[in-house]
């Protein structure tokens, strides 16, 4: 009996949350947001050797269809305001990866007058990837950690219900 013929007879059972999370973590589209030299490593991570596509990740040119923003590079105060606008344009659920020392805390340029000391001063960060810049392996691990976090989200079950894990926004 071939696999195709057997498919209609198969059934998988899972929870709605797990199914939603599985689909979401398997198609994280990230916004191209290269700010400095970390962007070069991010491109390398998306390239054939590290190949983010195998996680279902694809770069998008607009925040309006993106699930993830990888803040890669030095964030100036001038850019910080624009970053907030871009983040606000992304549809929920949305995630933020802070890549490299500069996006984490200002890094080498923390004392400079024009630099925002960390992107978490403007938008909430889910995963911090240390490094200056992080190697593609490090960013890949950060994104795998993000996938693990997405898999833990709870959407259907009320957040304040007893015995449920903490999750993101819940509608009653």
């Amino acid at each position, binding site marked *: 009996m071939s696999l195709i013929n057997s498919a209609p007879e198969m059934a998988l059972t899972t929870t709605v949350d797990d199914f939603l999370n599985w689909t979401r973590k398997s198609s994280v589209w990230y916004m191209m947001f290269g700010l400095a030299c970390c962007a070069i490593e991010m491109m390398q991570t998306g390239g054939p050797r590290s190949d983010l596509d195998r996680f279902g990740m694809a770069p998008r040119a607009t925040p309006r269809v993106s699930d993830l923003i990888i803040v890669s590079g030095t964030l100036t*105060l001038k850019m910080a305001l624009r970053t907030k606008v871009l983040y606000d344009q992304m549809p929920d659920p949305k995630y933020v990866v802070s890549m490299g020392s500069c996006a984490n805390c200002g890094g080498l340029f923390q004392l400079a*007058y*024009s630099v925002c000391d*960390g992107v978490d001063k403007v938008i909430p960060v889910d995963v911090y990837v240390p490094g200056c810049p992080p190697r593609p392996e490090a960013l890949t691990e950060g994104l795998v950690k993000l996938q693990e976090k997405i898999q833990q989200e709870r959407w259907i079950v009320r957040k304040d219900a007893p015995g449920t894990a903490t999750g993101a926004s819940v509608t009653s």
Partner: protein
Amino acid sequence: MAPLPAADIHARLKSRFGESIGELIGNRRDNASATVAPAAIVEVCRFLKGEPGLEFDCLSNLSGVDYPKRSLIEVVYNLYSYRQRHLFTLKVGAQRDDPVVPSVASVWSHADWAEREVFDLLGVVFAHHPDLRRILMPEDWPGHPLRKDFVEPEEYHGISTSRESLLKAT
């Protein structure tokens, strides 16, 4: 075409503009400079660019220096001639509390952005500049950050500009 020695360039400037040109400082090919009276800077630059034998066709750098003790802001013009392969540096002093220097954007058009940068970071106003706006800092940024007495604001649009160290002092 052989490069002119710095002393010759200075002598030609001196004979043409007289009192507007200061003493020659430095005599090597790459460190020679002279101060220029602010009122004469545009004419001096036009002369240096157009005069046969000098032909400074490239303003390779335009920068500013703040000297608070002397109450002076100096604008520095690094000139280069691709045709003659010689260099010269002009310096123009401006009063620190009200620095106004004529714009040379009419001589070298790429002075436009360089002067905007000096205006942005040091607050030098370039008279007759075609479009004198900030170029690096946000439009609503308070003050000019490369001035020695610049104090960084505590916060910018609600974003605090300092970050507590994770290493606690013991």
